């Protein structure tokens, strides 16, 4: 049953040093507030899973939280590189970070398989790609009915998943709307889960925009809910606020240089309250 906690308490309780953590949100509803809380609490040695690392993982990697990153597209969308990710992988700053690299299709299937309680995902994938030569987690199986060779990857089963959503109600049920990405799968695949939300409403079913088949995660499938207003800025929240495109461009300058980056984190994350 979801417990309503402050973001600080939720991260303190559920994100342990050394844990495998998935923070999802496919360009939309990226849990930045939660990422900043992880940085403030100086979590270390995390295995960070995310299809598109984006700025949130660039910040966490630069701040020294990550030991390993599992991803399928690691760029600053619409801008260029993730300089902190590259600096960690290529130059080992602030320390060496290991990467494990997939395609989107494989990671999406791996989250889906995790949610479905399976140990593996099977897909028509990686045909002719050299990714299997650098990722020993990609194997191939033979279909027992057709003999076709199919790719197999291990299911994603994080220790904790963190996602951001529009609303929760007092019973802890969460609504995700718009681009829903793999958030529901991330929550269901994880042992523990934290959902940050823009706001708490009385009852999702009583909301004017309630729809019988809306993407709702029931409160009993979530560990903790924390209110984090504007919790996904500079990414966006459908029907709440738009993406801060200017900041994505600015980030390129901030993240290019270690000192500029460190100052930015110090001023904008470490010194900020629980809701930066």
């Amino acid at each position, binding site marked *: 049953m979801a417990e309503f906690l402050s973001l600080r308490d939720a991260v303190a309780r559920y994100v342990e040093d050394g844990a495998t953590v998935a923070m999802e949100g496919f360009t939309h509803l990226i849990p930045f507030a939660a990422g900043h809380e992880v940085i403030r609490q100086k979590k270390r040695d995390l295995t960070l899973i995310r299809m598109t690392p984006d700025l949130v993982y660039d910040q966490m990697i630069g701040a020294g939280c990550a030991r390993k990153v599992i991803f399928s597209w690691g760029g600053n969308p619409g801008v260029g590189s993730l300089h902190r990710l590259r600096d960690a992988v290529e130059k080992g700053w602030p320390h060496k970070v290991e990467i494990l690299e997939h395609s989107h299709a494989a990671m999406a299937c791996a989250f889906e398989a995790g949610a479905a309680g399976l140990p593996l995902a099977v897909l028509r994938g990686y045909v002719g*790609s050299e990714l299997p030569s650098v990722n020993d987690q990609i194997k191939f199986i033979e279909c027992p009915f057709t003999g076709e060779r199919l790719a197999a990857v291990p299911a994603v089963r994080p220790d904790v998943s963190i996602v951001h959503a529009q609303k929760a109600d007092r019973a802890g049920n969460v609504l995700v709307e718009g681009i829903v990405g793999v958030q529901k799968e991330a929550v269901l695949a994880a042992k523990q889960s934290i959902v940050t939300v823009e706001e708490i409403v009385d009852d999702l079913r009583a909301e004017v925009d309630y729809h019988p088949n809306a993407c709702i995660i029931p409160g009993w499938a979530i560990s903790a809910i924390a209110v984090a207003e504007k919790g996904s800025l500079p990414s966006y929240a459908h029907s709440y606020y738009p993406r801060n495109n200017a900041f994505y461009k600015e980030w390129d300058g901030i993240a290019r240089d270690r000192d500029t980056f460190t100052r930015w984190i110090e001023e904008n994350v470490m010194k900020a309250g629980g809701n930066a």
Partner: protein
Amino acid sequence: MSTVDKDLDYTSSEMMTVTAARALQNGMTCFVGIGLPSEAANLARLTHAPDVVLIYESGTLQTKPDVLPLSIGDGELAETALTTVSVPEMFRYWLQGGKIDVGFLGTAQIDRYCNLNTTLIGDYREPKVRLPGGGGAPEIATNAGEVFITLKHSKRAFVDRVDFVTTLGFGRDGKGRDGVPNIGKGPTRVITDLCVMKPDPETKELVVVSLHPGVSREDVIEATGWEIRFAETLESTPEPSARELEVLRELKDRTARAHAGA
């Protein structure tokens, strides 16, 4: 970005986008990569192919953005979509399920057999330049009915041997799709700011089939990292129409205005 052709009222970038757009037929379902492919696909939708179905990997099905998205999952894409599905559903039901006629991709490197590299320059363990990675491309390239590729022509991009095959064209030897069941046709055309290329039906090696107005064979040879072949009857790519240019420029203006604000 690109220089205006001397005697013509359009840039080589515009020539590329218009030519790429024309490759899409009305009613096709197109899985759209961000950047140049997205620009071309939306130009097609706003000109000759109003019913082209644009699908982005963020789960937005049949979307009609008024301005070009910066990221693959901009709010604009969801707000103008027929419906938005989860990312696993997008890759499983719509791409792998065989509902996509054409995947429209960009790339950092491409070789003569249309293999694409978006992973890195140099060695995998000691990269000179680390690129974003595969994203949706590896499975778009094999599960879509066919693949169009668009990118700027340069020796850095058109290389003799890609440093890493992120995404299959026709393999290092051109035979990478032979005998593979349930696989799409692969790349059927490559559109650059200089020319249009297609794979040779037999060898799968890229052949220039059409030169853009004002572009010479030497320009293409100069910008290609291998001994590029030309078709026996080399065509001249039709120029952009006034309407295409107008629509494209309006689209880019709207986009610039929209993104300057945020």
